[in-house]
């Protein structure tokens, strides 16, 4: 017994579904090669569906007036008339109706669905039924996800862009011109290209000096730490600062340090912390809009290193001295090994800079780093035995009149 599938043929190159308008033969009818079995309506026209085999038409036959995907099986031709009659009605194994058009181009879905599938020969044995292959409605969705290798079209689209490193975006160039900046002096960002960010940073940062009539020089790239500290200091340029100096007798403090086996520096930190606690204005700093009142007093100590001046921070300087001492020990270790991280040296609210070990330093003013309210500069004791202490303050945050005398009375 042989059984041949009758499939809905591809009647035009753009046809995806067809509709049987009527069957001219019924299951059980004899069929010769060339006989018209049914009428099919394609996307272009209506045409006759011919038989390619001799035999008898057998069901299940596809229904009329339904959109059927091309290549679906719509009937069978068998050589046994008894079997043809027995197969009967159109109830089983019908090709599903094609999905309704969504208004998007059906070609897009079919294209991307069928795009990479190689053309394969049809199944060889006639006895194997060719099942229907409904066109998936919107598989374009799956393939739009980001993938690593650009396709040829994408590669062609991107070719030549960024071939040459450097330059500046049109916007950045315009900005630089308006701000009176020389693009040649600005270092690029991503891809060595100068963008608006770099121009703005240059505008707000310190201007490079012109070295035209200066001696020859060689350029040295700073270490990241040095660069970071320099940036921090540069930012403090805008802080309106004033300085108040008093002469104080620190001998009791030194004595206390020796007696308690504590570091003088630590006691100094503690003293300042206590003073700040009494005068909370000294723990505030001005942000672009509002005053930030900090909830903790973090005191940094300026330390001189081969990399330059760095400022390890003792967090919550009101804690017990032994805790502070332990933190200080760890920080000093890191400084020694050049392992200080931004978390270790940033964010202090008060700074202390102690040049007491240089006997000739009578007095000096320190710079208030951005983000802190004040810095205390401690010099060496003078000939009168008193130490000049200079408080440099951010005038925006602090009204200092009372601070220094009071704090140093502690």
């Amino acid at each position, binding site marked *: 017994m042989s059984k041949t599938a009758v499939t809905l043929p591809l009647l035009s*190159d*753009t046809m*995806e579904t067809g509709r049987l308008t009527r069957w001219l033969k019924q299951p059980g009818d004899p069929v010769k090669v060339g006989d018209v079995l049914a009428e099919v309506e394609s*996307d*272009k*026209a209506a045409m006759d569906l011919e038989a390619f085999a001799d035999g008898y038409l057998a069901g299940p036959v596809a229904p009329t007036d339904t959109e059927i995907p091309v290549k679906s099986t719509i009937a069978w031709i068998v050589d046994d008339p008894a079997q043809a009659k027995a197969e009967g009605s159109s109830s089983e194994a019908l090709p599903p109706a094609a999905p309704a*058009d969504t*208004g*998007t*181009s*059906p*070609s*897009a879905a079919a*294209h*991307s669905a*069928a*795009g*990479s599938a*190689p*053309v394969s020969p049809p199944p060889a044995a006639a006895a194997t039924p060719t099942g229907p292959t409904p066109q998936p409605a919107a598989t*374009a*969705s799956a*393939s*739009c*996800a*980001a*993938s*690593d290798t*650009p*396709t*040829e*079209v*994408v*590669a*062609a*689209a*991107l*070719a030549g*862009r*960024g071939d040459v*490193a450097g330059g500046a*975006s*049109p*916007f950045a160039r*315009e900005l630089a011109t308006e701000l009176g900046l020389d693009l040649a002096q600005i270092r690029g*960002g*991503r*891809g*060595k290209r100068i963008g608006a960010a770099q121009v703005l940073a240059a505008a707000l940062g310190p201007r490079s000096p012109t070295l035209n009539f200066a001696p020859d020089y060689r350029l040295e790239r700073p270490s990241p730490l040095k660069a970071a500290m320099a940036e921090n200091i540069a930012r403090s340029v805008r802080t309106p600062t004033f300085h108040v100096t008093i002469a104080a007798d620190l001998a009791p403090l030194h004595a206390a340090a020796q007696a308690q086996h504590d570091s003088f520096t630590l006691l100094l930190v503690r003293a300042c912390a206590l003073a700040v606690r009494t005068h909370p204005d000294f723990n505030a700093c001005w942000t672009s809009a509002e005053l930030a009142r900090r909830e903790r007093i973090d005191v940094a100590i300026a330390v001189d290193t081969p990399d330059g001046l760095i400022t390890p921070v003792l967090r919550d300087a009101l804690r017990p001295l032994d805790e502070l001492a332990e933190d200080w020990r760890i920080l000093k270790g890191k400084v020694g090994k050049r392992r200080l991280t931004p978390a270790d040296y940033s964010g202090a609210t008060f700074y202390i800079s102690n040049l007491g070990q240089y006997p000739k330093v009578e007095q000096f003013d320190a710079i208030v780093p951005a983000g802190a309210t004040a810095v205390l500069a401690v010099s060496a004791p003078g000939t009168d035995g008193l130490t000049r202490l200079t408080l440099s303050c951010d005038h925006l945050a602090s009204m200092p009149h009372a601070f220094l005398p009071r704090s140093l009375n502690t």
Partner: protein
Amino acid sequence: METLRYWQALNHALDTEMASDEAVIVLGEDVGLYGGTYRVTEGLYAKYGEMRVRDTPISEGSFTGLGVGAAMAGLRPVVEIMTINFALLALDALINMAAKIPFMSGGQYAMPLTVRIPSGTARQLAAQHSQRLEHTLMNVPGLRIVVPATPQDAYWQLRQAIRADDCVIVLEHELLNFDQGPVDEHSEAPPPHRASVRRTGSDLTMVSYSRMANEALIAAKHLADDGISAEVIDLRSLSPIDWDTCATSVRKTGRLLIAEEDCRFAGAGAEIASSLTERCFHYLHAAPLRVAALDLPNPYNKRLEHQIIPQPEDIAAAARTLALGHNPLEEAPA
């Protein structure tokens, strides 16, 4: 409001114009008895007869030229050139006659000629039958070109083309013929060459036309899933081009992607990129990005054909590099 297929919308447009103006005639190969190779002229022969729906021999150069002459003599011919590939045979009629006669006659002759030309890449029709030659026609002053991407636009723009006294070329797309969409035959149409913002967005502007505009929309939907908001502009017209709509968008987003089916080199996108750069230079964060077909004749092979024409995933990938400022072909930045 009804839902029509693109070819039906064109069919309705023709029918409506032919019913209201006897001067409207249709010419082309197999437009009459056969109803048109894409069914656009179905039923018109039966309704309007042989004089008004004329089957021509396979003589593109001559019957397009005939359309020119008939237009000069007061008819409103709608010439169908079966595909843009065959329009090559009619370039003398289009470029030397239709585009030049009104100019050379000092306006004494109008050119109420409409030329409908299905274009674009279909399925494995190979090199000589898959071309997109819009750039060739764009470069000709004297020709107007509309490129409807939806059934609604197809309806409106064909009617407007027929009513125009200039030569208007309607570049249809072979793969759009069976697209369905809403068509309102009674509401007022927008100006024929005005672009349409089919999706609003803020991260980048995608400018496209014809079938690619629909593909760009698909890409935009998927980009939204990645948090990238793309504005999609359907030009609807390639000559003239609605620069204002495009420029407003590019000034807003600062990033321009052009999706075209034309070959990249000297394609339609080259003009679009250039003009919008001139207009929006100081708002751009990056150079415009053109996603176009590769500069190759269309291969017959199905897989290769798919690879050379931009797919929605190509548009999306390119859009990602533009929006995120990352070019996968560049080395890692310093």
